[in-house]
């Protein structure tokens, strides 16, 4: 059987050399179709993947409508919290773990006067951040509730910043001055940069450069460190005009995250949010019914439209393109196979069964698919180099040609061609031995 299979593949390979024009057209067509699909799929895969698969169904964004039906958009609460609600959720401590975070950028003045000062981007957050998001550490660890409560100037820095400032050595316990304030380094993260950065889509940082620092939220607030991200104030005017009244105002700028391990906890947390909103209503702050949301990572990314529309549009069109290439292949295979009707007639007259014809021609199609796939692989590699021309650099750099994509390219090419070959093969197998012999 396997000997027969190899024989069929040989026949297929030999037949590729006949009808060079048709064969070339088919291989080119499959190559282009597969490459266009694979390149756009690589981008789509990179931007639509689950950034934290092991925990994406346990991490939730709680949102509270602090604006009311008159001012919110399409009935949705704003996509972040104001300071009052953020602090209330932290105090209530109703989830397994919880954190608030907002983007900050602190200036680093290198000791060496010849090196330019630079901004280290990062987040003001709570100690739970590191365990909630499974942040890997190279040295040390995150900080604990104690530091949060005491508003201590501790800091976790990235591996990259540690390399830049300390040459990669263990800097835990060292002092670091940022914007004239002294921090104590408690941890150095290993390479960690989930894409899209699900926890900060609010400020448009889904594809931003990796964070380099993490400091306690409580310390940042005490030091009046401004958010480097978005402020969404709505149009009701309750904004506040000093630091303190701003914190009490209704502008939203803080990303809330909670960890809930099972459905019962999720249900309980929803009830807690509704209870909180009702309390606010009784206190006179809200004059509308509770309108809260609790979305897990996938629902949140979907709601925030983290996948750029360009990626979806281009992938949709590329698969349409592949479909056309396949229709094209069906036609060309039909021409190629039917041209050999006399040969089929002879083989059938000499005792070949329909099954033999099927096997021979499908094997031949597989050879065409393999050749198309190899060409497609080459086009895909070229296409990946050209991605920077088509997508924004921060998105283009996420996509890469790895082994799985290479295998997928070959597999799609072969499978698609074999599927396309079913109809032409069926037609070939219908050739009547007697009729063909007579006509000759």
């Amino acid at each position, binding site marked *: 059987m396997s000997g027969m299979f190899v024989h069929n593949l040989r026949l297929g390979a030999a037949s590729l050399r006949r009808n060079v024009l048709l064969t070339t057209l088919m291989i080119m067509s499959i190559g282009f179709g597969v490459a266009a699909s694979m390149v756009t799929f690589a981008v789509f895969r990179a931007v639509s993947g689950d950034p934290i698969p092991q925990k994406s169904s346990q991490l939730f964004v709680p949102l509270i409508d602090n604006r009311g039906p008159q001012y919110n958009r399409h009935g949705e609460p704003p996509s972040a919290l104001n300071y009052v609600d953020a602090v209330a959720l932290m105090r209530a401590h109703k989830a397994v773990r919880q954190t608030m975070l907002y983007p900050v950028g602190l200036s680093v003045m290198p000791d060496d006067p010849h090196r330019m000062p630079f901004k280290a981007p990062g987040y003001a957050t709570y100690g739970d951040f590191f365990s909630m998001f499974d942040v890997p550490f190279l040295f040390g660890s995150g900080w604990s509730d104690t530091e949060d409560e005491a508003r201590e100037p501790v800091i976790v820095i990235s591996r990259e910043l540690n390399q830049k400032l300390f040459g990669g050595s263990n800097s835990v316990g060292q002092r670091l001055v940022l914007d004239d304030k002294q921090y104590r380094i408690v941890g150095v993260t290993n390479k960690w940069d989930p894409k899209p950065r699900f926890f900060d889509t609010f400020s448009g940082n889904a594809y931003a450069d990796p964070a380099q620092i993490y400091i306690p939220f409580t310390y940042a607030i005490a030091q009046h460190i401004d958010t480097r991200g978005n402020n969404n104030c709505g149009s009701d005017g309750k904004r506040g005009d000093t630091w303190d009244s701003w914190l009490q105002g209704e502008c939203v700028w803080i990303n809330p995250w909670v960890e809930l391990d099972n459905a019962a906890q999720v249900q309980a947390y929803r009830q807690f949010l509704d209870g909180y909103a009702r309390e606010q209503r009784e206190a006179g702050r809200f004059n509308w019914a509770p309108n809260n949301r609790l979305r897990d990572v996938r629902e949140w990314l979907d709601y925030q439209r983290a996948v750029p529309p*360009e990626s979806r549009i281009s992938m949709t*069109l590329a698969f349409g393109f592949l479909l056309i290439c396949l229709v094209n292949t069906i036609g060309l295979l039909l021409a190629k196979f039917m041209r050999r009707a006399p040969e089929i007639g002879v083989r059938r007259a000499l005792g070949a069964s329909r099954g033999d014809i099927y096997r021979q021609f499908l094997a031949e199609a597989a050879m065409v698919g393999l050749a198309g796939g190899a060409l497609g692989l080459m086009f895909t590699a070229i296409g990946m180099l050209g991605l920077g021309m088509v997508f924004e650099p921060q998105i283009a750099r996420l996509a890469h040609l790895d082994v799985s994509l290479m295998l997928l390219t070959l597999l799609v090419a072969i499978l698609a061609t074999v599927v396309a070959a079913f109809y032409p093969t069926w037609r070939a197998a219908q050739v009547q031995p007697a009729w063909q012999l007579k006509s000759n």
Partner: protein
Amino acid sequence: MQIKPILSALRRHKAGTFLIAAQIALTLAIVCNALFIIQQRVAHLSEPSGIDEANIFVIKSEWVGAPAPDQADAQMREDLQVLRQLPGVQNVTPSNSYPLRGDGWDDAIRLKPDQVQDSSGATIYFADENFLDTLDLKLIAGRNFRAEEIGHMDLRYKLAPPVVIITKALAEKLFPGETAVGKTIYLIGGPATVIGEVELLQAQSVEHWASEFAYRSVIIPERLNVSLGAFYIVRARPGQLETAMPAAVKALFAHNPRRVINEDDGVLSFSDVRSRAYESDRGMAILMGVICAVLLAVTAAGIVGLTSFWVGQRRKQIGVRRALGATRRDILNYFMTENLLISVGGVLFGAVLAIAINLWMVTRFEMHHLSMVYLMAGVAMLLLLGQGAVLAPALRASRVPPVEATRSV
């Protein structure tokens, strides 16, 4: 040309006919939509900013040490002085943002203090008296700010300047058919009198969500002092942009080194700003163009392949027709007409499919409705493509000699 014999011949080649028609239909559907996307994106990235793009560059200067608002303002004024003294600099103005930046302050504009729904959204540009000249904005009514009208404010102070300048687009939205100068508008912090109107000033964002107020901007006579830093918009003297950019950075650091000017994007010429803002639009246009070109080539190749096969299959019949008196031209016409019939079937189906795909994209990707011009252009393009592709095999068919009728296959 008799169509009936062609149709009856096609009935004997149902599969091939269907495949070519299907391919033409699918190609038309995709090419129309791709061309339409290209046109939309190109139109979007060709929208004018309203400023003197050739000579403008922008410096993003971030403070070290988070200075308090008054101190930040003093530092900012010193910086402006430093920049203005440079030989290559014509004018300079501080702002919180600039057209095409992609981030900034958008806010609600109302006509009455107690109004619930906004009259319009608008981009808020903070400015001093040099803003109009630096950006080269055309004042079409009223006057510019006077130096003594320029205040300064912290990010969180009430946005309530006594006077503002607005764009023509905003004026037309708020006061259709009337002059805006002298009227009162309500910003979030209180009323402001419109003292001037400028012709054109694009919003800070060119994203879809901001398209509603794309040219509606309000210019506020305040220097915005944020502890993080500020933008200095600089207009270089003609032809001196290249030298003025590094000179400006050097002078700022020489004056006050406690600042960060990012190496990658700290100083951007406006052409850099433009290409960054429209990266995804340009990319989509290129991608769609490549897909269209390859798609048309593949479809043409498919038609050539299948028609060649048909010609090969029918050599004997062609020979018989020639022997019975058909001219070469008749044979050529036969294949051309055959292709035209298949193509017409394909484009009819393809047109429906193109509209269906477009409607789906309208709901899914916030696209516009496909203009019929693109559909017609696509139809014409595919009919021509079909005729062009069939020409070579048809010519070969027309050269089949009559003697072929006597040969066996």
